[in-house]
């Protein structure tokens, strides 16, 4: 259990692999603490903040039990479990390279009294989760001939396993065959039109953004060398 000093919320990880976000009112002397489940309705009043992880877990379990009693038809735990399992499976399948670890930005120091840089663990978790999601989405498009719009069942990974030999770090560069200086997305579109034999994607097509995200992610740590052939 972590107590987030900025927002006063608790993040408890339940025994079923379920993240339960509990919003609490900031405890004040002698006043009870309101703890609310993330459905925005179910809540409980405590005489004080839980003193240990076990106590917090008991509170979370109690709230969950109340929610389940109110919603006997909704199997949300199963759904959440399935999603986690699915993401774990995809991670194992694609072996995605993880994003930069921003944990070093947490802690005491200049951040005190500097609102823009006063990050919380929750910020770090959010950044990582969201960027991973986009990269994972890109991995799926990259490996899916149908989503790429291929008319000959060809996907990117058939020539570029793990996005190898894509060299996003070498753009912009002049491509004689295209007749101008191009960015990665232009080369992606060239591949989609020719070896993949599909229609080029709009530059802001969510698939294009996801593809770029995946390709850049897999080349983490490479030195930028624009213009390299």
């Amino acid at each position, binding site marked *: 259990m972590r107590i987030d000093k900025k927002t006063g919320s608790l993040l408890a990880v339940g025994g079923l692999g379920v993240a339960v976000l509990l919003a609490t009112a900031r405890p004040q002397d002698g006043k009870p603490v309101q703890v609310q489940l993330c459905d925005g309705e179910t809540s409980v009043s405590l005489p004080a903040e839980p003193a240990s992880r076990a106590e917090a877990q008991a509170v979370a379990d109690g709230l969950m039990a109340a929610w389940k009693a109110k919603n006997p038809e909704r199997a949300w735990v199963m759904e959440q479990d399935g999603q986690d399992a699915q993401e774990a499976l995809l991670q194992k399948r694609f072996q995605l390279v993880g994003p930069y670890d921003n944990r070093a930005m947490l802690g005491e120091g200049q951040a005190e009294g500097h609102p823009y840089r006063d990050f919380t663990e929750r910020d770090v978790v959010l950044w990582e989760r969201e960027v991973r999601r986009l990269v994972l989405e890109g991995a799926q498009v990259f490996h899916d001939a149908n989503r790429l719009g291929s008319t000959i*069942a060809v996907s990117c990974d058939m020539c570029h396993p793990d996005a190898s030999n894509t060299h996003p770090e070498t753009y912009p560069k002049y491509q004689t065959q295209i007749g101008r200086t191009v960015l990665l997305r232009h080369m992606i579109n060239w591949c989609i039109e020719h070896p993949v034999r599909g229609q080029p994607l709009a530059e802001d097509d969510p698939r294009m953004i996801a593809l770029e995200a995946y390709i850049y992610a897999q080349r983490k740590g490479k030195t930028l060398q624009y213009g390299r052939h």
Partner: protein
Amino acid sequence: MKSIETRYMEERQAAIEGLRGLDRRAFMRVSAAAGAAALTTGAVWPHSFQPLTFEANGASPLEESFRIAYISDSHLYTKEVNDRFVRSILRAVDDVNRMDPQPDFVFYGGDLAQLGQPAELELGAEILKNVKAPVRMMVGEHDWYFDLGRKWRELFGEDRYSFDHKGVHFVVLNSVVEQDFWTARGLTPMERMQTVAGLDNGLQNPFMVGEEQRTWLAKDLERIGDETPVVVFSHSPLYHLYKRWNFWTEDAPQVQKILRRFARCTVIHGHTHQPLTNRIGNIHFHGLLSTAWPWPYAPEGLPELTVQMNRPDPFNPMDGCGMGELEVSADGLIDKVYRLWNRNPVTVSAAYLKSNGQDDRPARTNASSY
């Protein structure tokens, strides 16, 4: 009336046959006697075959050199789904049919189909019927994991076998055996196939030859003398290169142990779609080109002896693809020829491997993998 060439070839053949079955000591006697005879008669044998010639070659174990062509990794969908890969294998078939003289046989290196569909394998079988020379087949993972080899075996027979040709012992293995990852996850045959078909799909297991085949191989080789040239075909490289893409055979070290005693042993593998060269002890390893697409070189584990081909041109979908030949010399070793379409052919010679890269090095790349 026989021509000079015919008489020459007959004499040569007789000389070779006379030598076969001689142990080294008897061979030396024959050589000495022949040498002495030549001296006393003052005969010059410009058209004949003095046994000494053969001794100089290190007791050549083969009757004659010969040539094998190969086609590999065509990854056929049905032609309604993808015509490009169909046209590529047809080009390779034309190439081998135009070879003059014709190769003794054409070896197919596996991955004839893309998703192991019966219609894909049937299309491939039909296309390969146009090859004029006899065809020898090997299975790849793309042929296998839809129905676990049922259709492939129905069309082409056993997935592991051996045969002898002109003094060389050939062995064909099924090196793409994977431990069951599909039953526990309840995958359909198509899901299983698609999992294996993704080179970078981490949900599968490493390839292996497996204990059953290793036992078979050891038994098959029992009767083969150490000096007999042995050529092993395996779809995946029979060494550890890069596990993530199954450029890898898990039990390769055990297979190498079985092959170690042979003085002349060459392993030819598909799967990697690129010129790839390695040597471990006496064993020489060569990769095959694909007709469908080239793979990038693995980011790690590349054998020192490999001279990379230039990175393929993305603006030319045939670049980096091709077919090629195995030139089996009279000494039983192999010069590997990569016939890259749109490029000059590259030969990786036995001399290059024997000298550990000192002699006869192929031209270096100026566009290496990175």
